[in-house]
């Protein structure tokens, strides 16, 4: 157990940075490219999770539990956000019979 615990910092912190940036960029590209609303919501979840991963990595490397508490609250807020977002999606699908992002372009005005 002690071996496992002391082996945490074998991976350089930069690797976690690069992985997290990569996941965030992929999520951003997905949110820009796709028109299906539910896939855009999933890409938002992906971006949230990449930030969570970075927070946990920094928290573990600096021995500070505050980062992990922050991640916990981010998960709570994400769960609430997905609930309301999917309710809006169901409403949109029921009213317009499609899940296209461009159905919502009248919200611009």
């Amino acid at each position: 157990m002690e071996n496992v615990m002391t082996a945490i910092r074998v991976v350089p912190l930069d690797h976690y940075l690069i992985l997290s940036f990569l996941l965030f960029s992929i999520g951003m590209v997905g949110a820009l490219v796709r028109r299906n609303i539910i896939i855009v919501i999933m890409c938002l979840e992906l971006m949230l999770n990449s930030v969570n991963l970075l927070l946990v990595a920094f928290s573990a490397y600096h021995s500070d539990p505050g980062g992990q508490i922050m991640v916990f609250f981010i998960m709570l807020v994400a769960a609430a956000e997905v609930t309301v977002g999917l309710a809006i999606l169901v409403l949109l699908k029921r009213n317009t019979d499609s899940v296209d992002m461009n159905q919502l372009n009248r919200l611009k005005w």
Partner: protein
Amino acid sequence: MLYLFYFFAAISVIAALVVVSAKSPINSVIALVVCFLSIAAHYILLNAQFLAMVHVIVYTGAIMVLMLFVIMLLNMNTVVEVRKPVVTRILAVVTGGLFFLVLLAATRSGLSTPVPADFDPGIGLVKRIGMSLFQEFLVPFELSSVLFLSAMAGAMMLAKKDGTANVNLPPSSEPNDSRA
């Protein structure tokens, strides 16, 4: 240890790419579940055991199942998605790549903050997180229950069936919408 990290990193990146590029929303959800499980594996590698369990339970157990329910209830696997024009897609990919490069360049030299030498590996254990959560962060923790209550009430009010709260968008307002 390092190879485990590379293994799970490769799984998460490939699964994220599948999420973005899959045709059917069901495939996207499955790929996102794989991606979230590999992120939970990263949490275990970092010895954040509490967060790994919460991540598996909340994300892959609750949120993804909720999304699958919505996709199947709305019969969305038969919907044909109109793709954005090629120029928009290429520009989006270029934007994402540039964003990645900017982030890399910004942290390339700025990450010289030294990692402290005194190192406590047991920071992510359930006991430690629980003590911190219920002593320092008790008020936000209790406030989050109010947030959940309001989210639940809002979701039920939005999605309930009677016609009083409908916003009455016209059925198809554009010529190029996605009705097959």
